């Protein structure tokens, strides 16, 4: 026996028993073979009754709802990654929904707060239904196993969230999103949902107005294949990665669904509505949650001034998100921040709270400070800057009753969809219930549709597949190209979007950005990826994602340029006032076959809540 024999090797050899290593098969074939009850197809394409793209809370809830609605249908969830790697896990605060009416709260009040928070760009009938469903969703989540924090009576506990007139933000410690996602995964496994992991949706095929399926790339093998589906649910998340290094969302949230929908001729609604959170870490944009300011954290500029007194003296750091974000950016712009360009920042100071209080109440935030800024906020203030946080805009959905897009067979849910719940600004705590509620509705309706529909012919789907197959060869085939081209462009796109279409927008900046986008697009088209290997070619995945971000940026720019007013997160320095006479309507961006974008408008649905000035 060699002297190198370690404890671990001893343990391993000690427990060796007979038995071969488990061999697993993977891939499209297995997922479909295990669940498909659909008719065999002559074209040899894999088929599936209900295909769900995205495995965040919206995708997982859609899958379960479809299975429950009709257990005879095959339901497959496609994801670029393992389920639970989604943006949903990153949500911390909680999930809104009225379940306690004893203090005078009501569905109507929740709806009213949502409408007001959204600066009246919310469809009011939708907000009312949404609030009702959100209340029911909390109980349902509890019933399927979500461990909510509890009050003294053993009921779901709740906390205050920004912009709410009552306390109705239900939570599970400070990791509500993580716990919700895992609950949804458990429930999906329980209900026999199948997963197709490491698969990237490249495109979506609409033929004769109907959705006939999607083109998938198996990232593991590089195979690009058409999958026909009777109905498709897009639950691909948001597109705040257009600000690459200035967003709190995960690397994978690149708006693939919205971009595919645009290419397929569908409508991208309110794309200019991107929310900013005031306090992200300077490097990379990860969130320092509101808890830091809630506990008494203060903001300081490079003169050591508590600058919020200049902007909102009565509320200081606890003013609404958009105002604090604009105040910080003003300080940086006027030279009172630290650092330069994308590295600029101001300080968030909690040191006066004392070590004990920080360790007890803000341990996560301290940890994030250490990870990203190498700063222990017990000892020193931490460098922060506003960060893009949520996309209110998304794929146009006709009604909350169905979450259907105008193309029969195609549904959208969660952050990827825009059914006009959040308007121009989403309230804290409303994103998790959006994902849960809209996901479920989309799933039910996708199942109902699939039960009656047949498969499309798949001709266009085939053409798209061939196009993508040759695209892969073209982009990676030569093995040439500079390693850094794509990554440099991605950062430049993020910076250009941030400075010209970020927290402060003006006509001239937006027009300059349009030129930039044209230049970026040309550079993008010329990029070649120096990796010919089809197996797990993540560089190619990132290349496709960057293309999607460019497309989403262009759509957002179109909306931002046309909307000559300031509303919610969309702040125009050249049009400081909200203009209800001209812009109480949704921007509707489409793209034609030649890649030209077009803008149309749709009136906001006004209901029982009076349109009034949004006062703080």
């Amino acid at each position, binding site marked *: 026996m060699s002297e190198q024999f370690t404890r671990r090797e001893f*343990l*391993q*050899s*000690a*427990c*060796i*028993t007979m*038995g071969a*290593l*488990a061999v*697993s098969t993977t891939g499209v074939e297995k997922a479909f073979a295990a669940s498909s009850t659909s008719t065999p197809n002559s074209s040899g394409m894999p088929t599936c009754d209900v295909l769900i793209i995205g495995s965040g809370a919206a995708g997982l809830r859609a899958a379960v709802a479809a299975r429950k609605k009709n257990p005879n249908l095959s339901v497959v969830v496609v994801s670029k*990654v*393992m*389920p*639970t*790697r*989604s943006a949903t*896990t*990153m949500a911390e605060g909680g999930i809104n929904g009225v379940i306690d009416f004893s203090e005078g709260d009501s569905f109507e009040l929740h709806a009213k707060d949502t409408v007001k928070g959204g600066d009246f760009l919310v469809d009011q009938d939708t907000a009312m239904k949404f609030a009702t469903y959100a209340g029911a969703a909390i*109980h*349902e*989540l*509890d*019933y399927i*196993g979500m*461990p909510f*924090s*509890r009050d003294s009576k*053993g*009921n779901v506990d709740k906390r205050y969230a920004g912009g709410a007139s009552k306390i109705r933000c239900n939570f599970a410690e400070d*990791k509500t999103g993580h716990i919700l996602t*895992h609950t949804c*995964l*458990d429930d999906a*496994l*329980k209900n026999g949902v199948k*997963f197709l*992991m490491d698969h990237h949706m490249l495109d979506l095929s609409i033929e004769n107005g109907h959705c006939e399926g999607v083109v998938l790339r198996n990232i*593991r*093998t590089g195979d690009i294949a058409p999958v026909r589906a009777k109905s498709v649910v897009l639950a691909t998340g948001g597109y705040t990665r257009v600000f690459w290094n200035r967003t709190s969302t*995960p*690397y*994978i949230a690149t708006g693939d669904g919205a971009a595919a929908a645009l290419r397929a001729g569908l409508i991208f609604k309110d794309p200019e509505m991107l929310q900013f959170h005031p306090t992200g870490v300077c490097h990379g944009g*990860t*969130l320092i949650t509101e808890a830091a300011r809630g506990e008494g954290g203060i903001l300081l500029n490079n003169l050591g001034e508590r600058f919020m007194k200049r902007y909102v003296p009565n509320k200081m750091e606890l003013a609404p998100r958009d105002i604090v974000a604009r105040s910080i950016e003003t300080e940086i712009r006027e030279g009172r921040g630290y650092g330069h360009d994308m590295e600029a920042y101001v300080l968030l100071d909690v040191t006066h709270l004392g070590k004990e209080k920080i360790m007890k109440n803000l341990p996560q935030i301290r*940890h*994030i400070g*250490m*990870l*990203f800024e190498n700063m222990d906020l017990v000892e020193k203030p931490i460098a922060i800057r506003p960060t893009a946080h949520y996309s209110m805009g998304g794929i146009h959905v006709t009604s909350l009753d169905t979450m259907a897009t105008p193309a029969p067979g195609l549904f959208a849910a969660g952050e990827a969809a825009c059914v006009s719940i959040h308007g121009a600004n989403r309230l804290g705590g409303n994103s998790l219930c959006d994902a849960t509620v809209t996901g479920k509705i989309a799933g039910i309706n996708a199942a109902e549709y699939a039960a009656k529909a047949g498969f499309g012919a798949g001709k266009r789907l085939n053409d798209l597949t061939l196009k993508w197959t040759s695209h892969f060869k073209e982009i990676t085939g030569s093995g040439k190209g500079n*390693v850094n081209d*794509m*990554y440099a462009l991605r950062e430049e796109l993020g910076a250009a979007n941030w400075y010209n279409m970020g927290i402060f927008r003006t006509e001239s900046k937006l027009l300059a950005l349009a030129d930039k986008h044209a230049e970026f697009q040309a550079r993008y088209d010329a990029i070649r990826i*120096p990796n010919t*290997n089809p*197996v*797990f*070619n*993540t*560089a190619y995945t990132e290349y496709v994602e960057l293309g999607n971000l460019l497309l989403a940026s262009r759509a957002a720019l179109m909306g931002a340029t046309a909307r000559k007013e300031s509303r919610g997160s969309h702040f125009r320095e050249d049009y400081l006032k909200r203009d209800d006479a001209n812009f109480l309507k949704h921007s509707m961006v489409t793209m034609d076959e030649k890649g030209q974008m077009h803008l149309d408008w749709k009136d906001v649905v006004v209901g029982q809540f009076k349109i009034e000035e949004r006062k703080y």
Partner: protein
Amino acid sequence: MKFIIDRFDGKKNYQQTYTVEKKDIEALTLLGTLLFIKQHQDITLNFTASCRMAICGACGVRVNGHSYLGCDTKMTELFEAYKDADTFRISPLANYTVISDLAVDWEPAIENLRKIKPGLVAKDKFSEKEGCVQNQEEYDRIVKQWDCVLCGCCASECNKLSADRSDYMEPFVYTQAWRVANDSRSKDPMIHVKPAVLNGLWNCVHCHECSNRCPKHISSADDIAGLRALAMKKGLNSGVGPAHAKSFYTDLVEDSGRLNEIRLALRTEGVSTALRAGTAITLMRAGKMNPLEIFGGHTIEGHKDLVKMIEAAKAANKE
């Protein structure tokens, strides 16, 4: 400084060394370093990452053989842990099938999760319309296990899986079975305990490496122990594993307080233990085993107190 990374391109395994200036990475996380190498030196390097804030679990890898969650590990921590070494070996998580470089296949793990039915089946008194009721104490009992982010670090460290994964599952699978079986809202813990027993629960080798390396400080080893206790309490007490556990208990409480290895073997595996006679003879020759102890040995000092402690623990558990 150098990073030796284990590569796999779908066909062949090889190692590749990357040289990086220390100043470029010392303020970064381990994930930051991987991104730095990919984006500046080698675009073909593959790994997975998503949230970069230690909640999605996508970026588990091994450094010098030990698993780390990439985004949750500062390079300075690694410099400290490995005494300022200037070379690090980075490999994919162990005990997973490697797809490419540092990316591993999660599908078998998801299928294992499916086996233990992690979805809660709530008690009949609860309803979808009104939800459940749970007090703080009951909530506290399960909430630690809910921190699991499915990063796979525990499975990478698991010695049992390394030896043979045909009759065992990833440690986090048992943790998830335990969190739902132990939930006060759960209708019947056996829905989750039974498949855990049928899928290797008693095969854990108690090395506790899973607990040592969990970035969220969860102990799957403890959760496995919890599941075993629950299984026996609910009558799933036949077979080698439970017999083995009971034998320990008998020796400790009813007998001398000293583990009797000969009787342990007999009680655990019955007469089939004769198949291991060779091992026993070797041990006896080496003076490691006294055959006369089959008739019982000397009671250990303080045995009465030991029994009292065990009885007290039992009583407390019943309350």
